[in-house]
């Protein structure tokens, strides 16, 4: 049994669960495609959170039951959704007034890479086989009050996704405020990256070895844990 096998790495759903615990009651939140979208399922039940969708919705609820899909009611990922009581609908330019104007408390996004300064690269890997797409990534990145990134700590090849500088094209510079990975929760501060939570079985040196950008560690680093979630 190698050293890495003893690390209590979170699953993708557990990363979403962990991030969801930090969403506060009353926040207005936009969830990016993929991992972030899962977080909606794990917000503690006593907190009322209003989810925003770029195509012009506030108050997005859970997925509809099979057979109850409404073709006029989809989210930005083009999935059928429902609306909660208190939901509202608005035109696209108003939806991005909400985003760009700093009215969202939080956007939770995925990323290819984040730099030590909070630079974000999440819109293109410049794979020339496919046309590029940007969607609302750049708007959300500069607009929301907080940008939290949910991603794997390393690529499939084991390379750090938290870097001194992003290698992929930037989405926006200096915008990320927190990173949730399968190994750690890390704040982006004016003094650099500060580890708040770290997976069991990791030492600071071991986490640093998996991370290109320099890390510092909070005095009270907590153990990164999440229940088994489906």
């Amino acid at each position: 049994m190698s050293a890495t096998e003893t690390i209590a790495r979170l699953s993708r759903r557990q990363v979403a669960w962990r991030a969801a615990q930090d969403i506060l009651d009353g926040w207005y939140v936009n969830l990016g495609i993929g991992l972030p979208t899962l977080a909606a399922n794990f917000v503690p039940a006593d907190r009322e959170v209003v989810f925003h969708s770029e195509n012009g919705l506030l108050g997005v609820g859970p997925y509809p039951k099979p057979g109850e899909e409404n073709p006029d009611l989809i989210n930005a990922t083009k999935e059928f959704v429902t609306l909660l009581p208190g939901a509202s609908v608005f035109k696209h330019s108003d939806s991005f007034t909400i985003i760009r104007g700093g009215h969202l408390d939080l956007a939770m996004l995925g990323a290819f890479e984040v730099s030590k300064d909070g630079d974000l690269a999440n819109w293109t890997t410049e794979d020339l086989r496919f046309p590029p797409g940007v969607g609302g990534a750049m708007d959300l990145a500069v607009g929301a009050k907080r940008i939290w990134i949910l991603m794997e700590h390393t690529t499939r090849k084991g390379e750090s996704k938290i870097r001194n500088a992003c290698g992929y094209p930037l989405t926006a510079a200096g915008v990320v405020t927190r990173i949730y990975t399968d190994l750690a929760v890390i704040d982006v501060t004016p003094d650099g990256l500060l580890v708040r939570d770290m997976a069991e079985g990791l030492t600071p040196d071991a986490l640093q070895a998996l991370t290109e950008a320099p890390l510092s560690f909070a005095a009270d680093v907590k153990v990164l844990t999440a229940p088994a979630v489906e």
Partner: protein
Amino acid sequence: MIDKRIPTLEEAVAGIEDGSTILAAGFGAAGVPTQLIHALLDQGARDLTVVSNNAGSGRDGLAALIAAGRVKRIVCSYPRTSGSVVFEEFYARGEIELELVPQGTMSERMRCAAAGLGGFYSPVSVGTKLAEGKEVREIDGRIYVLEMPLQGDVALIHAAKADRWGNLTYTLSSRNFAPDMAMAARLTIVQTEEMVELGDLDPDHIVTPGIFVDRLVHVGKNA
């Protein structure tokens, strides 16, 4: 739980600081947040900048705030109306500053701030006294002036119906500046004629989504 309802007008305007920029909705007597303005009068904040299409009429509302010497500066398109006697007295004595803005530029500058934009090029006022000192630029053969965002510290809004999330509807011409102002302030305070249950407002009919509203006070119909 999200509950933006505040029991009293006094609490609704608590904490408004001296020197604040107040966006005051209303056009003519329609949609004027009169109770909130009177609560602001009682609250005591001074050296205010007020953004409002008109500069008050009669002795109530905005006129009372001006009469109490609390408004340092007014940003408006049409200060002089049939009843704007208080403003005119203060203006004649040099006791209030006036920034005159074309009416459409007023709401567009507030929307610009609300939308997180840095400014916009407008064809309005080009070549006039109101464009003096503004950057001028030719784009595609037409001349424009650069207009800057107009952000409020506080917006005072009158709504027809509201729910506890702060979703709002308005009645007819009482809508006017309210949706633009509600979006453009750091603190948006609403007086509503009617308070309804969450879910009572049709999502397609909500004009101001609750994300733009911070505090909500029920004042009833004859507000």
